[in-house]
């Protein structure tokens, strides 16, 4: 039996059929018919954000914390252009989101109509795929296909542009189960290549697992299999920023995050290993440092679902194309069948070396009795939230790196941060999306004051929906990372990198109807954090921290992993002109 309905109703019906429970959006002229349908139903909650960028980041937060695709709904023109940053962010970090945009009616497209923009043209390079639907009969099928494309293979953002006349017109609803998309990426890895990897694992004297966001995107099974593989082989494991939580921070094989602000032991292990097993990471420039000095002695294996990631930056010896969970399962199977062999003589020596590196204690910082150090604030936050059902979001900058260094993640989908694009303003709306998906959880956005101000309008959303998101702002009254680079690279000329005219964050919170807490004394910090955690509602925590703290360790641009800067003393003249060119 075919069902006839309006395009607007199809949108709501397709979202229901896809299991969507929450949509983040902002209405406008070109989506009014869809909003009318939303008004007349109760299955899907609509969260009214205060800016379309917030809607997309909230959908991202929802997606990253649940593994399900997030959905945003915005109007044409400015609604769509405001969504571009979020789409690009989701593309860079492979986050499955579906963005629905209104469009002027088909007969007005191209006439420079009010609130018209070439949305599919503008978003073509920042979506995995997008569609302009010109016939109501094709709308439902396109919606279902969009969910498939967003979630299959390497996930990513998709956008459907729906002209207003298509929303009004009546057409035939295509059922979800009748869709047969052509897009079917390969998920099973080649067994010959997997066997080659297992042979390398059996002989490896200094192996390391280098894991990324692909493990999390592959689903909880991938994290489970990863834990089993690490446990069985006793190989050390490090992860990118995006992959934190796939292996527990409390696990004994955990080296911590690697990369530009990664841990000394993780980067040294990457540099000196003889077998690097990349699982769902992409040799990002924040990870590799100077490419011609990147892990010079190792055989490199790359497991990725995206063929274009393979050999893009670093040439590998074995490439395994497939979904992480499928490939890990096969690796375990083959490795067990071949007798569970590892080099039992060499591994303890490798671990001894790693433990020597660990003994350097690269995260050591000089604490203070009078000023709150940002690292100390995060150490206390970690201690006081240990064991809680906790989700952490971040903005972008020094605080983000400190959060990655000082907070421990035991499970996947607990850490929402803008990795690839580095979007300041991401964390607050993302925390709203996370809290919507996990109403009873403790959701904390670790922020810098400058990033946080970029999307502070979402306080209204948090209040309206009673979302008890905790905004933990490490306020140094500086664009900390910019300031750090200016200090190290630009002769201490601090051009435009301080936050003038900051609001009183406590009063700001109160103006919105939230709770504001300020703390500037290390002795009061624990009580203040406890007060934040105990409050049943949104909190802005203005944590006044040391203004000139630098984030270490640091691999300066253009340097190799074994040329890390460890602290203030060693930074003088450490970065040459060549490195300054890089970002």
């Amino acid at each position, binding site marked *: 039996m075919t069902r006839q309905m309006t395009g607007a109703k199809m949108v709501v019906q397709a979202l229901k059929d896809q299991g969507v429970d929450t949509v983040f959006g902002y209405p406008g002229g070109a989506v009014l018919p869809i909003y009318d349908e939303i008004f007349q139903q109760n299955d899907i909650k609509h969260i009214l954000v205060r800016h379309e960028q917030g809607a997309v980041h909230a959908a991202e937060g929802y997606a990253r914390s649940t593994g399900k695709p997030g959905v945003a709904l915005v109007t044409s023109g400015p609604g769509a252009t405001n969504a571009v940053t979020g789409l690009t962010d989701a593309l860079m970090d492979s986050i499955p989101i579906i963005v629905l945009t209104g469009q002027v009616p088909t007969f007005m497209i191209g006439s420079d109509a009010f609130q018209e923009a070439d949305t599919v043209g503008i978003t073509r390079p920042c979506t995995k795929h997008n569609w302009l639907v010109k016939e109501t009969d094709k709308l439902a099928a396109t919606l279902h296909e969009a969910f498939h494309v967003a979630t299959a293979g390497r996930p990513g953002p998709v956008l459907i542009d729906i002209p207003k006349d298509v929303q009004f017109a009546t057409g035939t609803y295509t059922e979800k189960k009748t869709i047969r998309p052509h897009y079917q990426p390969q998920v099973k890895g080649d067994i010959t290549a997997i066997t080659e990897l297992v042979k390398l694992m059996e002989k490896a004297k200094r192996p390391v697992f280098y894991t990324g966001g692909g493990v999390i995107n592959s689903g909880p099974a991938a994290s489970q299999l990863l834990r089993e593989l690490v446990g069985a082989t006793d190989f050390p494991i490090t992860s990118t920023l995006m992959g934190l939580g796939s292996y527990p921070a409390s696990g004994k094989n955990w080296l911590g995050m690697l990369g530009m602000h990664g841990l000394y032991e993780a980067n040294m292990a990457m540099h000196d290993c003889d077998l690097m097993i990349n699982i769902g990471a992409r040799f990002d420039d924040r990870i590799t440092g100077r490419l011609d000095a990147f892990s010079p002695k190792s055989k490199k294996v790359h497991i990725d679902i995206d063929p274009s990631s393979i050999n893009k930056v670093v040439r590998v010896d074995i*490439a395994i194309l497939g979904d992480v969970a499928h490939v890990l399962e096969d690796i375990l199977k083959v490795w067990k069948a071949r007798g569970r062999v590892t080099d039992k003589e060499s591994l303890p020596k490798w671990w001894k070396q790693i433990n020597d590196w660990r003994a350097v204690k690269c995260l050591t910082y000089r604490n203070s009795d009078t000023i709150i150090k940002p690292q100390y604030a995060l150490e206390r936050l970690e201690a006081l939230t240990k064991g809680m059902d906790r989700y952490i979001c971040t903005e972008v900058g020094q605080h983000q790196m400190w959060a990655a260094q000082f907070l421990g993640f035991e499970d996947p989908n607990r850490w929402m941060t803008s990795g690839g694009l580095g979007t300041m303003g991401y964390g607050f709306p993302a925390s709203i999306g996370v809290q919507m998906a996990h109403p009873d959880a403790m959701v904390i956005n670790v922020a810098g004051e400058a990033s946080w101000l970029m999307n502070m309008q979402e306080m209204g959303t948090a209040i309206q929906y009673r979302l008890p998101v905790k905004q933990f702002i490490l306020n140094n009254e500086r664009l900390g990372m910019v300031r750090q680079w200016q200090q190290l690279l630009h002769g201490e000329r601090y051009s435009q990198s301080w936050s003038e005219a900051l609001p009183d964050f406590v009063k700001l919170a109160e103006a919105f109807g939230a709770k504001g807490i300020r703390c500037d004394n290390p002795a009061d910090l624990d009580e203040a954090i406890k007060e934040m955690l105990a409050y049943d509602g949104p909190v802005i925590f203005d944590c006044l921290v040391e203004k000139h703290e630098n984030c270490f360790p640091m691999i300066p641009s253009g340097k190799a992993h074994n040329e890390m800067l460890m602290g203030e003393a060693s930074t003088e003249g450490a970065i040459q002109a060549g490195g300054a060119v890089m970002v």
Partner: protein
Amino acid sequence: MSALNIKKGATSHSAYNLRDNHSDEIQRHTLAVIVENEPGVLARVIGLFSGRGYNIDSLTVAEVDHTGHLSRITIVTSGTPHIIDQIEAQLGRIVSVREVQDLTTTGRPVERELGLLKVAGKGEARVEALRLADIFRANVVDSTLESFVFEITGTSEKIDAFAELMRPLGLVEIARTGIAALARGA
């Protein structure tokens, strides 16, 4: 769409079949990209090349399977082996791309281009143009007392050579289709 024998799946590029990409030698490759014939698909392909800084030396596109709504984009590109690999992989992950074939991996493909050349002149030059056109097996598809339009088919080099010869004889305008190509053999 049986005649095209198009494989299922959007990512036909195999990561196990990688050529030596250490080489810095710039190679010229002809790629056939089979795409779903939908609005914007050409923009996706061209946008990939401009966005990632790849070269397009020639590009042609036309629907080749009306029932399956499939178009064939023939792209001539150049780059190091590493870049060529990346181009193929990046093309392969565009959702509307069904298949990417590198026609240059198994020897040089059959490549043909069509050119239309307008040559204006009188007297001896006009006779000479007609004589050269005959040698190049170019057809006259339009003529007035003072001009010819020649149609010539062949490799791009052949059209280049013909155009060079026509230049002193009164070449006014030239239109070229870009390359259409097929791999040799079955």
